[in-house]
């Protein structure tokens, strides 16, 4: 094989063993190529200066510890995943898709229920009429009857008030009766409204106290 100076760089880049041999043979008679080859190869020799064989005695034990720790963490994560996996044989992608579908169905169902629920003003859901509500209404009726009896006792004094105080009581009782009538009307429309029931009870108690004071004043 015959090579010339022009072939030198190509051989440096990707020369075969035969081409290198031919180049060296050529360099025996060509000072330029001989120097180029020497300089080129001296870089390879110089590169060996970048090797550092200083030992790192602790490095493997450090790596080993880190590998063991990472392995333990992975085992713990796998255990947690196993516990929380409802579909152990289904891939993570499918599990995510199923979870998304479930959330979508749930949202759609709730939206549908809210939109389609019939709205009847003044009429409550029958489920809200519990036995406790009936009991409250019954007690309320009994309490009302008892107060009516008290009112009947105080009626003569109130119809013909002997003092300005009794006249004031009379007026107060008229106001209370009016308020009670309003509240009873509202409670009739909304029987399960606890707030209305409390207000009605407070009115009855006030009427009871007023009637007691009227009877006391008349003695």
């Amino acid at each position, binding site marked *: 094989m015959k090579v010339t100076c022009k072939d030198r760089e190509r051989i440096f880049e990707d020369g075969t063993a035969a081409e290198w041999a031919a180049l060296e043979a050529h360099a025996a008679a060509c000072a330029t190529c001989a120097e180029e080859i020497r300089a080129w190869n001296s870089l390879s020799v110089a590169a*060996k200066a970048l090797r*550092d*064989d200083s030992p790192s005695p602790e490095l493997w034990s450090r790596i080993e510890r880190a*590998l063991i720790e990472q392995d333990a963490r992975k085992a713990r994560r796998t255990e947690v995943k196993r516990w929380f996996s409802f579909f152990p044989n289904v891939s993570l992608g499918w599990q995510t898709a199923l979870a998304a579908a479930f959330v979508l169905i749930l949202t759609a169902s709730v939206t549908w229920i809210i939109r389609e629920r019939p709205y009847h003003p003044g009429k409550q859901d029958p489920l809200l009429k519990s036995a406790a509500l009936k009991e409250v209404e019954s007690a309320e009726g009994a309490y009302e009857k008892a107060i009516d009896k008290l009112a009947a006792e105080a009626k003569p004094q109130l119809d013909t008030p002997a003092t300005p105080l009794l006249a004031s009581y009379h007026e107060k009782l008229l106001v209370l009766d009016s308020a009670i009538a309003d509240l009873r009307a509202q409670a009739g429309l909304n029987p399960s409204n606890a707030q209305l029931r409390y207000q009605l009870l407070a009115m009855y108690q006030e009427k009871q106290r007023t009637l007691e004071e009227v009877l006391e004043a008349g003695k």
Partner: protein
Amino acid sequence: MGTMGLALPWKTRITSALREPAALGRWETRVGPSEHLTSGPAQAGAEPASEDAALAAACRAGDLRAYERLYMLHGARMKNLARNVLGRTVDAEDAVQETFLKVQRSIASFRGQSSFVTWTYRILINTCYDARRSRLRKKEVTTDDDAEETPRMEPRAPGAHPSLRMALERALERLTRHQRDVFLLYEVEGFRHAEIAGMLEISEAASKNTLFQAKKNLRGMLEPPRSRAGELR
């Protein structure tokens, strides 16, 4: 004659400094034209395919002894490569450790398209450059003055010739990343172009060409000005 020599008189200065760690058998000598006359570049990174596959299988099975074997075979070279990229031994050791952890984390995804060792070195190189980038970001946070990332090489073992090494290190930093990688892998670590191609995900021809360009550039940087003038003739 004489005008093409490098700035450093290599032959006279390196002979005593470049004793191979023959006892350890980690690196093979691959210097001078004689290598091209015989069998070409040494196959320093080559392992029998069966051993490579067995090593991969054992690592996949979680066998710590396999990782230890990998370390025994390649730990020193991995550390050296990382050190040449990162500049400091402590950073290099961190990079090697991180590489082993990444291998353990990703071994299930290793499909055997390249050799296990090649795959490991690819992880190492990427880890080193991640570390470099991370260091650069930290540096940018602390100071905006010196944005250029240049690893500060710390003193090495007494065996290496200091002036030669430092000149080469400085010149290497001025190469492109690919040129530096190929030069380090081929000339310093002794890998074949086929292996380097696998590690850097380039073709073998590209690896050869990159090495050629790297060496040409290094010569340009290391030669005295008078010899560059001589070359232009």
